[in-house]
């Protein structure tokens, strides 16, 4: 579960902005919140039952409501990050969530695979 990464990215983004008083700041804050929400959704599969995760999800809803943020709207551009060694053969912008096996391996043992086939008459 990588909810702390989402938390730190959100706080890092918002701590650089001003005090959220003007309309422009509000737009920026909503954008940061949507990005935060997006990040939590990515972690949902592995964070189920994690207190920090559920707190974050509720906190985001509250903040969105307080700031009248729309759930649909622009999000922040993803940050450029140094890809870990196992990503060296993949597109650098391909999110980790899009690699089932790499994701799975970090959280559990080797996945069990099943097979199904249909052929003939």
């Amino acid at each position, binding site marked *: 579960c990588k909810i702390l990464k989402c938390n730190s990215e959100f706080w890092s983004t918002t701590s650089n902005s001003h005090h959220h008083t003007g309309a422009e700041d509000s737009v920026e804050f909503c954008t940061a919140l949507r990005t935060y929400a*997006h990040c939590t*959704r*990515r972690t949902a599969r592995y964070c189920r039952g994690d207190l920090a995760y559920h707190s974050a999800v509720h906190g985001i809803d509250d903040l969105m409501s307080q700031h009248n943020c729309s759930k649909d709207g622009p999000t922040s551009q*993803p940050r450029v990050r140094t890809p870990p060694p196992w990503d060296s053969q*993949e*597109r650098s*912008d*391909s*999110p980790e*969530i*899009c*690699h*089932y*096996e790499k994701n*799975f391996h970090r959280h559990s043992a080797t*996945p*069990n*695979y*099943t*097979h*199904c*086939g*249909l*052929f*003939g*008459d």
Partner: protein
Amino acid sequence: PHLRTFTDTFQTCKIQGAWPLIDNNYLNVQVTNTPVHPGSTATATSKITIIFKNFQECVDQKVYQAEMDELPAAFVDGSKNGGDKSGANSLKIIEKVSGQHIEIQAKYIGTTIVVRQVGRYLTFAVRMPEEVVNAVEDKENQGLYLCLQGCPQNQQIDFRTFHSQTPETGSRRHGTGSNGSSFTPQMAGAKCKEKLPVEDLYFQSCVFDLLTTGDVNFTLAAYYAFEDVKVLHSNKDKLHLYERTTFGSGTAAPQS
């Protein structure tokens, strides 16, 4: 068609018309089966539709469709990957043999799908993690889908009934055309043994298909189905199956 389910049960089914093979949070696969001869209860797959559902920042919803004599190496929108999202390349179509064999790799769900056209008809094979197989919103009300539950009892064909008949009555019973009576069981067995030396259920399916249709392309269909199992199945000790799944009333089917 012959169905090998996620739990390695093996059935021969009628399933004429459209039937779901897979239906979960990520993927929906539907096949359409048509009679191999007019009026025949023996059917084969003439159309396959695969819907990859929209998934986070990986893929947009993508639809793949193959029909008889049309096995494209692209989704219906003409694209070959998951769209415009940052993880779009975690879904891609690879053309193995033009018009005959494609592979779809869905890395974001750890899934590989193989679709072939052998003769006039289509074959389907998939390798999928159990976690994905079981990813359904409402498991209690999960509808029928063949890869998980197998064919309904009233759709299963009893091999024993077929094999107990002479080739001539067999072909009349199954309503096949003149080709249907061109093979005796001995001839069909010999033909199938050329491609499938082990007398497992793939071999038996091959014999069944030759006797019901007289179409030698079904020999290749069984052969490639087994080739796909060899590549996609995770347990190499379970490639060959010998025991047919028990029958409708609960009576055991004959062993090979």
